[in-house]
């Protein structure tokens, strides 16, 4: 009884471990990819909040420092325009970084595979 139980349970556990290894590539391009995209976009949105790009864009025609006369409006529009451009560029840099991270996620298993294949082929070539 005990032995039987032991055997079936250890069989179950080995299956579980095997499944975990097989699931690895599936996860990487399935749930794992989704998870990464979610995390990265959250990160980027946080950067947006920190930079305040949307706040500046939304208020682009609103005079700064309560200066609602004509001159004030013109100056603040120019100022805000410059701010929007600079902040937008900063945000773009972050976007590129985030995209780069995503691309690294997608290609890294393939790259490793390719490099290993190159190693092996060069080994067989040299033999």
């Amino acid at each position, binding site marked *: 009884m*005990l032995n039987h*139980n*032991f055997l079936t*349970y*250890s069989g179950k*556990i080995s299956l579980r*471990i095997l499944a*975990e290894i097989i699931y*690895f590539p599936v*996860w*990487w391009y399935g749930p*794992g990819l989704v*998870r990464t995209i979610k995390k990265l976009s959250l990160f980027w949105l946080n950067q947006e*909040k*920190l930079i*305040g790009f949307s*706040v*500046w864009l*939304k*208020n682009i025609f*609103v*005079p*700064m*420092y*309560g200066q609602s006369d004509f001159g004030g409006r013109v100056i603040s529009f120019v100022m805000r325009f410059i701010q929007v451009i600079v902040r937008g560029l900063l945000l773009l840099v972050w976007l590129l970084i985030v995209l780069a991270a995503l691309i690294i996620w997608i290609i*890294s*298993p393939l790259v*490793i595979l390719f*490099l*290993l294949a*190159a*190693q*092996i082929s*060069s*080994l067989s070539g*040299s033999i």
Partner: protein
Amino acid sequence: MAKEEKIIFTDEQNNGGRGAWFLERFLFWGREANRSTIFLDRTVERINHIFVYLTWLLIFGGWLSFGWWVYLNVDSLIQDPWTILWFWKNFDPLIFFFLSTLWLDLFLFYRHCLKKDFSQRINYRRLDKKPSRHSRKKYNIAAGFSDEAIRLIDDAYILAARLKQPEVAVIHLFRSLLKSKDIQNLFIRLNTDAKRLIEMVDRRLVKPVKVTRQEGRRRFSGPTEEIFVQAFIDAYRLRQKSVDVFNLIAFCAQRDPYLEEILLELEIDQDKIKNVVAWFRVNRRLLDNYNNYRRLAILKPGGNMNRSYTAIATPTLERYARDLTVDAKYGALDICVGRDKEIEAIFEAFTGGHNGVLLVGQPGTGKSTIIGGLAQLMVAENVPIFLKDKRLLELDIPRLVSGASASEVSERLLICINEARRSGNIIFYIDNLENLLGSSSGANEGLNLSEVLAEAISRKSIFCLAAATKENYSRFIETEAIGDLMTTVGVSEPEVNEAIQMLESKVGFLEHKYDIYIVYSALEQAVVMSKHYINDKYLPLKAFNLLEKAVIGTSRNEKDGTTFCGGEQVAAAVSEITGIPLSKITTSEREKLLSLESEIHKRLIGQHEAVEAVSASLRRARAALKDSKRPIASFLFLGPTGVGKTELAKSVSQVYFGDEDYLVRIDMSEYQAADSIRKMIGDVDGTVGYLLKRCAKNHSL
């Protein structure tokens, strides 16, 4: 959600385990346990650990071999650094090893993510949905338990097996739960002698448990499985990620009468355990909230400018007001607990088109703390849209009125209001609003500043929050224009449990400041006793002050070795403040009470009937059998002059309260006119009467 649903346990059809219907599903404990599976699980876990260490080692080795390769080829790399990009071109064992271990990097990351995602054990998506006719109605709760809980449950199984018990009873579960660090902390907070508790439980373990089921293999007893189900439902209601040890411990005592007895002997009951568990959870939630808050606070501007730069410079306001949002950003304000309703009412009033909100409540009920809580919400931008990206400024009235004539003061206030209006990102807060009324510095110039404020509010040019005590509101504010304009939000005194929760959030601060460990009974007693015995102040402040006094007292006695502040220390502090004997009935007091008659007769001869009646009622009061809202007793002594009516009263005061001075003596011949009642109980204009004045402070005779 089925919050009040009663749980009825039944037997499961297939294998006879216990379970219960909850949310139209049958919850049952479906984890198979026997020694071999537990052994295998633990072995796998151990192998897992070894695997992780080994992986780290290999990863390290991989990078090391890459470094070694660079070192070997350093000459050619210096000549042409770009060749490092072609490191993979030619076969090299070092490079091959390095590339192979890169897989392990990815694999380890994959395992880490899986584990992190797997911490959400309770499947709310499935449980919250009504089961359709075809879906499975049985729900195995074992999958919802945390790793630690499962490990301790397995330990309980092993313990029962080692003791050759036919069933895993509640006592086994309880004993293995005591191994958990969290549970140990819980009993420390309850000021329990852990050694004694373990001894008592161990003694019980030796005795064979009552078998609830006759079966070949060992399994969990009915009550134990019921605890699992209850713990699961508890965790579900609290929306926890998984069932943890606290959920389990809360129900153990209920299910085993002997265990209940043990705990009662150590002065622990079900409620105490539940309250301390709640305390731990509140602390954890506060910590989570705080971390989240700090992350959000980075975004809040620290100066007078808002994020969209539409605000203007406000030099006058900087002088006469304090920026609460900046204080909140840097964590200088107290945490606000259990006042969601009041804050919600403030939001509602503002969104309902009222520009002025007045908090009215007794002093010490936490009006300023609510405002602090609001400031923190504003920092986290967790507020309705019109409060987003705004500053909360507390107007400093004493500074505003100091050293200026009335007209100058009103000018200052007007400038402040004007700055706020033009800046558009400012919400005012005025504590003690009554200070604005009738503030006239010069004797001849009587100007009511509240009119200036009232006008600004009525024109909806500013948002204004204010606070006042109940008494001042009805005396000064209610009849003024400003009183009409402002929506009042009542801040009531919290109930006992709420007050305990509020205190719990402050314990960390007190413990840190005085280096004293505060146990649960201290909190409970601080709230209960201050509610009973300190009548001229209000919760939660009076409980906090009392607790602090007790803590200071304890820290002073620290040299004697006491670093715990418990209920007795709080009782001593109450006793010190009020002069009433409160510490647990000590022998001397008990003797005094039992021999009250003879004590009184030391001063008074005769009058046995009266003395006995008075003594009996005092004993009754001390045994807490009286109604706490009524006087301990009322007597009418009748008799001719000189037989000892006054003397009896005096002796009781002397014997029981310790001094004759606790006697409030009222000579009714002074109160013969109809209007002299005012002299006794006070007048509408606020004069406090003689009787009230004496009674409010102390227990008196």
